[in-house]
């Protein structure tokens, strides 16, 4: 497992407004607010049909919530955290109809959670519009103990559950919203290369 030139990095197509959609359901975290402002700023006519969910997350302290409020979307939910945002999103998805388009913007782990919520409600993943903004930090699943380590910016990283030093592979699972972490010293016990800052 010395290989790292793997090609299954997710591709985020950008937060293009689908003008055909009858309802826009937009979930944004942190710097993702800027992607929303860019995309919907170009389509102000869509705002009257837009439900916006926002958690300040990684960009707390900046005033993105106020800028989003100034957009006057049909609904704006400013949530205190990613998990509470996802909870609210699930409530909305439960009664949403087919003309609804789902959007996600923010860090990768957040996008992964929104996509997973959409898929759990029958939304085809290809129809979800996504844009990566903010930190490149990754959620990493340890392939050995299955534990998730959040906000990983380095490789190798120590699994926060079982303690195995993990090589972070560029292999991404949409279902888990996580990259794969695999033991880096299995063939050289104890010989762990220094952590490199790769995903800050």
């Amino acid at each position, binding site marked *: 497992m010395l290989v790292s030139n793997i090609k299954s990095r997710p591709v985020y197509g950008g937060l293009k407004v689908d003008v055909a959609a009858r309802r826009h359901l937009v979930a944004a975290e942190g710097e993702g607010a800027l992607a929303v402002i860019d995309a919907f700023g170009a389509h102000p006519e869509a705002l009257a049909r837009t439900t916006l969910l926002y958690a300040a997350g990684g960009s707390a302290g900046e005033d993105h919530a106020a800028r989003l409020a100034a957009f006057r979307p049909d609904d704006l939910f400013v949530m205190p955290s990613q998990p509470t945002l996802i909870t609210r999103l699930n409530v909305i998805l439960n009664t949403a109809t087919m003309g609804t388009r789902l959007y996600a913007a923010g860090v990768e782990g957040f996008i992964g959670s929104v996509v997973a919520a959409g898929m759990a409600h029958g939304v085809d993943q290809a129809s979800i519009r996504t844009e990566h903004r903010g930190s490149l930090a990754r959620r990493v699943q340890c*392939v050995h103990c299955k534990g998730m380590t959040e906000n990983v910016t380095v490789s190798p990283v120590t699994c926060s559950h079982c303690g195995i030093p993990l090589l972070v592979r560029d292999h991404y699972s949409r279902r888990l919203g996580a990259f794969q972490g695999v033991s880096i010293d299995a063939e050289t016990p104890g010989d762990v290369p220094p952590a490199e800052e790769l995903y800050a």
Partner: protein
Amino acid sequence: MTIQFKNETFRDDFTFSNSPEAIQRFPFPFDKDEYMYAVNIEQHMPGPAKSTTEFPIDIDEHYVSEMRDRALVLKEDPLRCQALPHMLTAEWDLVELLMEQMSKHYPEHFSLTRDGDKWRWVNRPLGIDQHFTFGDTATLPYPPMEYVTRQCQGDFALIDQRNDMLWMDAGMITTQADWSLDFDIGMSWTEWHGPVPLAHEMGVMDRALKFMLNLQQGRPVRRLNWTMTINPRLDTSPENYHKWGIDRTTVTPENVGDKVHLRVELQALWRLPRSNAIVFSIRAYMIKMEELVTVPKWGRRLHRVLRDLRPELADYKGLTRFRDMTVDYLARHDDGAPTSPGFFPD
């Protein structure tokens, strides 16, 4: 033809070995003295008598021990067998395919009696006699895919086809070469092949996808893939890599012939009738270098293939640490004589 099932292990004391007959029928994957990726797909037609492709599903002398090893893997890690809910119809398709093929070609070991949807399955080697209702999951002790694949050699992935894409949505994967079902389940064809080097650049994956999307019912196809394994270990999963990876450092010039195994996957693909899903079967065969060189042509050829293998492929297949030692060992069995075309022993 009654198979004499061996009692052997694929872990701890590693008592696995091939009988002389098993060596002769080993699916040697190189028909030339060099190896490069290709969409080497062919119709899954019956091969020569006693070969691994004589029947669509191959049961051999390792059957009982392999099934015991699978049960051990599942006991430790139930996530090796998973199915997304929309795959249930495909699971039943797989039950029918495997039970029909096994009972048809190995009647002394397996039998299937059907009366409408009331089925009776008898598996003599494993001592199973099961009455059940086809299509009714509650009449089997396990979900349908798990039930039947606990009784059939090889890993199985069930692949759904939606919107001109293939999706890895179910599987029984306990003998894999370094990929995780738990991680890959739900992925598209493009996503789960992400880790394969070179293939993307060559357009191999796109051509293979197009081919697979049009795979026809009644026309299964197959291909061979290969890697090398230290010790006859079936469970070379990433989940347990931290346990078995160290094996790669234990090869010495003295034990290379015994420890290093060529591992060949006979991969077959069938279109399933009820679900329109595809079953991807991955049947692994292993042979240690000492056994392999008893066929002179194979010793010569594997030496040349390994010696000339591109470094990135050697790396991807995990051979880097022991490749030179294996090449040195095989060099002693390569007199430089020309090899005949094709896979089979001379």
